[in-house]
């Protein structure tokens, strides 16, 4: 059960009542405007109360909210999109959607992880869990972008890579490892946005980027909280505790230098103003691409190297900085 969805139930009731009152008020002799206004104020108060500050676990639930804009909501708002399918070998994985697009008039290759909103769509999209074939599609599209000189724009939204039998049989490790390799050497700008849940290596495979953007209430984690709890304590029901420890919020990750930019969400989450949220994210991506535009391919790859080369926290007696020259 999604804790955010649960909370919204009460609020939805209130919203409905206010709307009804407003309609009724129009055809009534007695003006109830002041009462309605008071109710609305109350509603806003509750909203702030409920959503004003979210715990990590609440953010995990926000990231998984069924109404939250998914990759296709962003892709659908691009000026144009021409989907390219398949890994060229074996299958077209619908948990990844990719192709050519125009973003604010700028030609790019866009790649997004896609979960479903209902059972049928979730089956088709494998709950956004990408198989090796999907990662090979990603790899292929990244190479194509590099070949044509087109920037790569990715949308990350996955609990993690598909952990099924056939994914193991088709070398999931190799598929992800090759994505990391390709994104590291791609000679074009890369902007990745964590739009929902960013789960472990399966998310990172699309997120080695020159600029990493994250929505305010998205999460990005070394493992899903459930997975972490199972690994550490042999008890996946302790997910909430794991979430609180993992430092998986956008704010934490910006502090660590893993995320470059956090895009704010409306009070109550991106789905309360999907259109506005999508607009803000696309504007942030466009701005990032604008900044990266000036860098030549060598400089771009070098800067990307420096960025990932220095990530981490450790103690050392050395005083010299880590060597990063090529």
């Amino acid at each position, binding site marked *: 059960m999604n804790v955010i969805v649960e909370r919204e139930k009460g609020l939805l009731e209130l919203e409905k009542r206010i709307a009804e009152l407003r309609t009724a008020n129009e055809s009534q002799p007695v003006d109830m405007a002041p009462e309605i206004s008071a109710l609305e104020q109350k509603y806003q108060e509750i909203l702030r109360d409920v959503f004003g500050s979210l715990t990590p676990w609440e953010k995990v639930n926000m990231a998984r909210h069924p109404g939250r804009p998914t990759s296709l909501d962003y892709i659908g708002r691009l000026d144009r999109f021409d989907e390219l399918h398949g890994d060229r070998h074996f299958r077209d994985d619908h948990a990844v959607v990719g192709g050519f697009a125009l973003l604010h008039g700028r030609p790019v290759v866009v790649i997004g992880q896609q979960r479903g909103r209902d059972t049928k769509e979730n089956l088709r999209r494998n709950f956004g869990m990408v198989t090796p074939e999907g990662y090979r599609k990603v790899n292929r599209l990244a190479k194509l972008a590099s070949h044509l000189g087109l920037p790569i724009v990715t949308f990350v939204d996955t609990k993690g890579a598909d952990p099924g039998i056939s994914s193991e049989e088709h070398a999931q490790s190799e598929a992800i490892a090759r994505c990391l390799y390709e994104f590291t050497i791609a000679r074009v700008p890369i902007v990745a946005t964590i739009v929902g849940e960013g789960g472990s290596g399966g998310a990172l495979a699309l997120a080695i980027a020159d600029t990493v953007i994250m929505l305010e209430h998205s999460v990005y984690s070394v493992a899903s909280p459930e997975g972490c709890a199972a690994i550490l304590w042999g008890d996946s029901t302790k997910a909430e505790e794991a979430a609180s420890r993992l430092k998986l919020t956008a704010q934490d990750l910006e502090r660590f230098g*893993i995320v470059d930019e956090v895009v704010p969400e409306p009070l109550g989450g991106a789905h309360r103003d999907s259109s506005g949220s999508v607009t803000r994210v696309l504007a942030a991506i466009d701005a990032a691409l604008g900044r990266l535009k000036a860098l030549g391919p060598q400089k771009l790859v070098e800067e990307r190297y420096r960025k990932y080369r220095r990530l981490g926290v450790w103690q050392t007696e050395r005083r010299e900085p880590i060597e990063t020259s090529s």
Partner: protein
Amino acid sequence: MPAPEWLRIRRSKEGGKSDAALWSKCPDCGDVLYRPELAENAYVCPKCDHHFRMSAYDRISTIVDGDFVEIGNDVLPGDPLEWVDRKTYPNKMQADREKSGLSEAVVCGFGTIANFDVALGVMDFHFRGGTMGTVVGERLALLFEAARQKKVPCIVFTASGGARMEEGMLALMQMAKTTATVTRFVEDGNFFVTVLTDPTTGGVSASFGFQADVIVAESKAMIGFAGRRVIEQTIRQKLPDQFQTAEFLLEKGHIDMVVGRRDLKATLVRLLEYAAGGRRESEKRA
């Protein structure tokens, strides 16, 4: 870079502490084995060929000719998440340091194998299940960078449960960091070999583990992306024993070869000879 600390390789001390620790039971055939003899036999059961997990220094001593120059051992763990569960992260680390005699889950450095200069990274499952946090990533990154400078082949022995939870996303980012240094090393035309040992999963198999030019796996090693238990929970049925073994992966085309530990050094020497030959020929042709 600071002057590296020179270290004589040393046998790890595990098993030398009490009488009971002098004996190990083979989990495959059940035989009770005298540990000093087991050590002489590269930790392979003489009866059933079971490969016991090896400590990093034991491994190094079976591979390099003699001296081994460790690098990166001055890189030591922090506690970026200020992690606490039943214990604090620093406390867990302290316990593993004492248990394993290691400062972290990987030992990196330079040595020779049949007179070939090589960069060598060896992970150790006895330290935090070989999980990759910042220190593992940083030490390997230093290794790949130094190997690139020296233009010597790099061999990495993996043994890992994946990314280290207690360092959160900074642990995950080590997949990116190691990849960054691997790509530079490999794209420069250098030779990279991984030896996947039992077990190799998650963030390690899905980064440098499967980015090598030649991927060797030790006999019967368990290798995969998702852990066996995770898959079983997902599909709600038991997996066949063979699943995710080195031999299974060979059949599925994922790895180049499966090698028994006693043939491993000889195999690596031959691989180094081919690569050295290629480099020699290329230089002549250039």
